[in-house]
């Protein structure tokens, strides 16, 4: 962490003494003893984060090892302790819990597999268009594309329920082009199954009817997202693209104009300029957007809760929603908490994977460096350094917000 770089305001003072004597007692003379004030100032944050984040996580870890049903306190000896059964049941024991969990994992994999590439591509495309300096009114269009991201996910879900209703706007539009729209939220058919059906494969081939991993047949693993899930995917792409577009826009503004002009003088076409000059410079942002997208997509909850509650036929069940439902509808808090922690694990693994990959890329020479050192001089020492280490975290939590909202 870069905190040591900015051990207080001293760095900005021109007459600062050499580093060694800075922290000696003599300084206390001017600054006084800051420890009581410091701890007092951070106390509310420490208490609330500790009480409502750290402590609950520990409590939930305990509950995930029990069969608590919501009656009384989970921390008495009367609550049966089951060890790791809640976890292992989700993988090894044939039953409803495993079936639901694996279904939710399948659904979310398809969901991530479609949402992340589509929203990233759309966000990049919109950013490139909005960044075109010839066009007027770009501020308006930028705001228009971003607006859905800031509105209430619940309110937006209500609108999309109406839009995707049987006699709703989408089906009406499809009818204009001669298509017969499906009953979006009642249709549990997987898209891949429908496509296979279109080429004559209505029955699963014998090889696929059984034997898939974790007690689910290969045919079911390979269903694709259901029609109902597709409407949720459309909603999410529609809401989150704007946020990621802003990230791309911020990065596009870092591309030095001189570079583009130089390539123009060298006779590069518009496409070549995009492909060989602009896109390579966007790579770090592209990567960030992909990672934030993946992390956010594993947390989809609000839309599922409002629009489908996991139905039809469990095809919109996701681990986040499943953990909620298992705990608060079926009163199996142990299993629900176990699902939460597995989801947590999935997200942590994805985050670590991102760290690892980012570190690889950081070693290469990057043009952004120059912009940064210039800003270092302007903004005082430290600001940019902290930006580097911390902003990824800020971005991640921001993406979590986005993921939930969207």
């Amino acid at each position, binding site marked *: 962490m870069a905190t040591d770089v900015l051990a207080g305001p001293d760095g900005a003072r021109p007459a600062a003494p050499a580093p060694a004597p800075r922290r000696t007692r003599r300084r206390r003379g001017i600054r006084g003893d800051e420890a009581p004030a410091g701890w007092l100032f951070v106390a509310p944050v420490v208490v609330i984060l500790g009480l409502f984040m750290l402590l609950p996580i520990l409590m939930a870890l305990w509950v995930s090892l029990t069969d608590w049903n919501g009656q009384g306190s989970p921390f008495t000896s009367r609550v049966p302790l089951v060890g790791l059964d809640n976890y292992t049941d989700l993988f090894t024991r044939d039953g409803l819990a495993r079936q639901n969990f694996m279904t939710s994992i399948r659904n979310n994999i398809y969901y991530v597999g479609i949402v992340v590439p589509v929203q990233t591509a759309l966000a990049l495309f919109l950013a490139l268009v909005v960044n075109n300096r010839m066009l007027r*009114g770009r501020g308006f269009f930028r705001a228009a594309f971003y607006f859905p991201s800031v509105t209430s996910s619940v309110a937006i879900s209500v609108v999309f329920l109406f839009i995707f209703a049987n006699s709703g706007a989408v089906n009406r539009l499809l009818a204009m082009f001669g298509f017969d729209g499906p009953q979006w939220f009642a249709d549990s058919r997987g898209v891949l199954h429908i496509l296979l059906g279109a080429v004559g494969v209505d029955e699963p081939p014998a090889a696929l009817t059984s034997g898939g991993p974790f007690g689910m047949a290969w045919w079911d693993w390979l269903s694709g997202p259901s029609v109902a899930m597709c409407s949720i995917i459309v909603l999410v792409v529609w809401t989150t693209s704007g946020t990621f577009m802003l990230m791309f826009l911020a990065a596009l503004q870092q591309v030095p104009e001189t570079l583009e002009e130089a390539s123009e003088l060298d006779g590069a076409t518009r496409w070549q300029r995009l492909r060989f000059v602009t896109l390579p410079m966007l790579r770090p942002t592209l990567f960030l957007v992909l990672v934030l997208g993946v992390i956010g997509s594993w*947390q989809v909850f609000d839309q599922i809760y409002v629009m489908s509650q996991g139905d039809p036929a469990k095809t919109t069940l996701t681990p986040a929603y499943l953990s909620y439902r298992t705990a608060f509808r079926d009163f199996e808090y142990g299993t629900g908490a176990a699902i939460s922690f597995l989801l947590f694990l999935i997200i942590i693994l994805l985050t670590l994977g991102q760290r690892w990959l980012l570190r690889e890329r950081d070693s290469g020479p990057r043009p952004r460096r120059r912009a940064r050192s210039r800003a270092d001089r302007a903004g005082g020492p430290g600001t940019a350094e902290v930006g580097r280490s911390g902003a990824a975290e800020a971005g991640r939590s921001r993406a979590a917000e986005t993921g939930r909202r969207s």
Partner: protein
Amino acid sequence: MAVLTQPGSGPTVRPPRDEEPRTPQRRRRRGGNPAVTFAGYAVLVFFALVFLYPFVIQLGNAFKTEPDAAANPLSPIPTVLDLSSVQRIFEGTDFPLWLGNSTLVTVVVTLGRVFFASLAGYALARLRFTGRRTVFAVVVAMMAVPPVVLLIPKFLVLNQLGLYNSYAALIVPVLVDATGVFVMKQFFESIPASVEEAARIDGVGPFRMYWSVVLPMARPALITVTIMSFQGSWNELPHTLVAVQDPGLFTLPRGLADLVSGSLGKGSQYPLKLGAALLATIPVAILFVVFQRYFVRGANEGAEKG
């Protein structure tokens, strides 16, 4: 001042440049192909429709009769202007109650988050005390915890403390958010310490330093955190699901979700639902129009990492 307008987000994040003056020379060179310009506008207009038309549909259909909404879902203009759905939002549902709860919770949570975040951010940026780095490390770690994973844990602790089903349950757990602390700390580190040094020589104590010297300089960051908090709190659904159960404590998103899941009785009643959703959207929409660049900055908190 140039530093002040870019709190925390570091030097590379700034509101995208819009209509800056261009030299005629450059414009001529870039102006070029009218077909490309036309295509650019076509794309922009098409996507503006895609992103905004759902709101137009929402607005239009809120003022339709139910059969009209079912028959002409795409049309933004009601065949007959029908205000009965809007009326029923206020008379036939608990909408006014949800609105009151949402307002109360959002105002308290926003004030709390801004105050606590700036207080802690200031201490973490400027005051020297043992454990400061540990506290900051914990704050950063908390930012990485996915919120949906905390649903059951939060319920457990509220239940254990006897807070479940109360206003306190809606407010206290979300009174601090790690991201806000982070943003404020970054901001305070970006402003020069000379003013504080001067005040310190005058014998100003830490709290007065924070309150009357530093805070007035922190306006941009305060606005960013205020907006992030307001928007997050106003739109929050999952936390209310695990904090309260009593319909008297429902906030707007919770009440809306309840309407959708069928508490209305017969019929789909889309005009009513759309109208209620529209009313729930308005406060954030107004905020967005007025403070757009702060929203942009909030979103770009994540774009810095390159």
